[in-house]
């Protein structure tokens, strides 16, 4: 017991001092004294969870049906472009029905060539040895491309990565806010934005796929057929964005929004809000050629399969700049410009969970949490003092040190404090003294059995440690499982419990042992009040 070497005293004191130092910036945060903390000292801070800071939490899930649809459409464009190349293969009746892409080869002798060129379009997938599409022929002239399972999985993974970046750019175009956008599992994105009071605007920004396409209007279509949803071969029927009517457009995409470099909200000559866009070089060239070839014809500006407007091409547009007109408000034009500039979402995202906490409630929770922590600690401290006297004082010092250590370690790992985390903190305060209770009761027992003081203290610490260790492992198991399965706030609770278990064993066992050893060495007491 008395053997507590000097280097150990230094080590324990150093850990304690370090913990206290690390915890101070978090404690000062939000008070007028925050600026008084010297810049050369550690600046780590605990971040507050959304339930304390206020803000919005959104869980988005990829619409897998839409992902497949977009993938088929992209493949259709790719196939059409490939087969138009020299030597061209004439095809017809392209269909994306049944989750696969198929087309007729008009000249039966070219079927084999078409299949070969389709095979060349498919890509091998790493590790699996599969390709991303299966190519087959049915009815001797119809070529069918079926997405493979592993190809779909890979495509979804790629799409989720892109979608995450797009979502981030849309919410935070300047890249300055402290937002969290991460993928979760195979098809989800978690978005956390602190301090947002109105999540509706946020959801509008994320809710739009923003796939922009320019297609020619099919003037040959019979208007009555179109209203019933039937279009001539090579065309498709799309609704107008305002829901007024439907319109037939050519399936072939003239230019798409992928080739945009810039999109800003502006006003047209009649002072109605519109969106100014600028194409990149390749896009500008395609746009110029398409408008040159089709002067006098109307072309449709299509956003997410809805026609925004279908103006006439009055003259070729050569500079790569264009305006998107439609029935916009300033706000909706601005939102669309942000969405277009950030790129299209490769897959539609649905909000499957939303949690928003107002900033006032968060402040209220912190306030009540802090008061409850202080009162709770005070209650435990008084109780320990009247029960164990001097050894209660040691336990209490350990308790306070423990509180600082928990905060310090949380700050060092930049852990997030949530509302249940505060509960975890208070619970840890109440439970951390258990180790000291075990030790002190054991010492009382050993003294009753007639052991000498130093012997009793020694035995107390030694015999109590087994139970302390086992009991804390059970906490680690339950808190670990909680951290693994729990989401957001609950995980915050588990993290505090886990850190608290480790620090409390340190403070309640090693730290108090040091205090007791120093006291015994200094005063050589003959009897013990415990």
């Amino acid at each position, binding site marked *: 017991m008395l053997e507590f070497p000097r280097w150990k005293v230094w080590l324990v004191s150093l850990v304690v001092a370090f913990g206290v130092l690390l915890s101070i910036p978090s404690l000062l945060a939000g008070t007028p004294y925050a600026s008084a903390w010297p810049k050369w000292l550690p600046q780590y801070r605990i971040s507050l969870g959304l*339930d304390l800071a206020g803000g919005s939490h959104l*869980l988005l*899930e990829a619409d897998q049906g839409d992902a497949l649809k977009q993938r088929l459409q992209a493949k259709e464009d790719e196939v059409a472009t490939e087969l138009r190349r020299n030597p061209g293969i004439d095809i017809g009746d392209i269909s994306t029905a049944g989750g696969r892409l198929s087309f007729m080869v008009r000249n039966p002798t070219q079927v084999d060539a078409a299949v070969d060129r389709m095979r060349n379009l498919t890509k091998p997938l790493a590790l699996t040895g599969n390709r991303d599409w299966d190519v087959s022929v049915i009815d001797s002239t119809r070529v069918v491309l079926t997405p493979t399972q592993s190809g779909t999985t890979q495509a979804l993974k790629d799409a989720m990565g892109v979608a995450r970046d797009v979502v981030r750019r849309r919410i935070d175009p300047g890249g300055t806010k402290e937002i969290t956008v991460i993928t979760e599992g195979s098809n989800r994105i978690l978005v956390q934005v602190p301090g947002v009071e109105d999540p509706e605007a946020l*959801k509008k920004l994320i809710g739009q796929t923003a796939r922009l396409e320019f297609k020619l209007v099919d003037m040959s279509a019979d208007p009555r057929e179109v209203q019933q949803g039937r279009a001539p071969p090579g065309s498709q029927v799309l609704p107008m964005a305002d829901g007024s009517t439907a319109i037939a457009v050519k399936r072939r995409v003239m230019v798409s929004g992928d080739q945009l470099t810039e999109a800003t909200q502006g006003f047209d000559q009649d002072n109605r809000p519109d969106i100014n866009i600028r194409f990149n070089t390749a896009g500008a060239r395609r746009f110029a050629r398409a408008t040159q070839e089709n002067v006098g014809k109307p072309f449709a500006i299509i956003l997410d399969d809805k026609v925004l407007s279908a103006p006439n091409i009055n003259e070729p547009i050569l500079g790569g700049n264009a305006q998107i007109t439609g029935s916009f408000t300033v706000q909706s034009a601005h939102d669309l410009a942000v969405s277009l500039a950030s790129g299209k979402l490769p897959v539609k995202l*649905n*909000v*499957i*969970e*939303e*949690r*928003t*906490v*107002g900033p*006032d*409630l968060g402040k*209220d*929770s912190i306030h*009540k*949490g802090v008061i*409850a922590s202080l*009162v*709770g600690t005070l*209650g*435990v401290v008084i*109780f*320990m003092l*009247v*029960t164990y*006297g001097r050894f209660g004082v040691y336990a209490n010092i350990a308790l306070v040190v423990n509180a600082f250590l928990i905060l310090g370690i949380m700050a060092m790992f930049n852990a997030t404090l949530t509302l*249940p985390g*505060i*509960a975890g903190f*208070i*619970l840890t*305060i*109440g*439970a951390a*003294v258990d180790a000291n*209770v*075990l030790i002190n*009761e054991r010492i*009382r*027992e050993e003294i*009753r059995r007639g052991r000498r003081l130093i012997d009793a203290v020694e035995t107390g610490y030694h015999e109590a440690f087994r*139970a302390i260790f*086992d*009991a804390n492992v*059970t*906490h680690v*198991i*339950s*808190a670990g*499982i*909680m951290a693994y*399965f*729990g989401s957001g706030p*609950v995980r915050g*609770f*588990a993290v505090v419990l886990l850190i608290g278990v480790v620090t409390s064993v340190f403070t309640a066992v090693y730290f108090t042992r040091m205090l007791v050893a120093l006291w015994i060495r200094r005063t050589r007491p003959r009897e013990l009040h*415990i």
Partner: protein
Amino acid sequence: MKLLKLVPDHTNLDFMRWRNLALALSLIATIVSLAFTAYRGLNLGVDFVGGQLVRVTFAQPIDVDKLRGQVLGLQLGEASIQEFGGPKTYQIRLPKPEGGDAAANVAATRVKQLIASDYPGARVDSVDTVSGKVSEELAGDSAKAIVFAMLGIAIYIWWRFEWQFGVGALLTLAHDIAMTLGFFAFTRLQVDLNVVAAFLTIVGYSLNDTVVIYDRIRENLRKYRKMAILPLLNLSLNETLARTVVTSLTVLIALGVLMLIGPEVIFGLAIAIFLGVVIGTYSSIYISAPVLVWLGVQPDSFLRSDDEKDQAEAQPA
């Protein structure tokens, strides 16, 4: 200074005298609790059944029936309104809408509009929207987590002690969880994710006492190899009684404060753990220990393995 001793020095309470009665009563209480939970069901929050929860603090006390009428007038399905915390704070709960996610957004927005227009100064504290899919996953994950935690701890106890102790720990945990479930079914307190966190905490903390008592039983089994099992259990329980009482009190002091003056949102969590600690203290005495008798633990049961362990422990020291 005169120190407080809640438990006198040499207690000699015959805990085991009542063990059969206590075990029978606990068994009945557990069955009644589970049956009641199954019959009446838990008041599951939106976390587990999906839907929306809007918490509002009004500027003045309001007429709840009028608000209820207004919300029902929005035709959003079976809405419920409850006081929450103070007299001016209410939670409005809306069921999962039929029309999918878009409809869910509309529902919350319409409630917010209603409040903004008819109750000036009211503050929307929080809005939770949980889809059916997410709520099913959360419910499944929560159930899994509780079961895994119970099994994990029982296996650890088995490994550290003997299999009888592992079984005892598992039964103790099952009893504690069943009783707490019954409490939530009876009081109709809302069960949300925080309450599940509380259940997991109970799994950890209720076993705290059991571990301490088991540790002492193991120690005494080695020390008094001739003593019959019942007196040995009584001795172990009496020796640890002071610690059991003091520790339970410190935890209850901290949790009691949290329950009474802490944030309302985590009241459910605080009361669940508070209750769990009370139940856990009882069960560590009247379930964990008697189960060992029932499973046939005798003073000489572990002699052989104990000797091996003694040797193993002697070496590193």
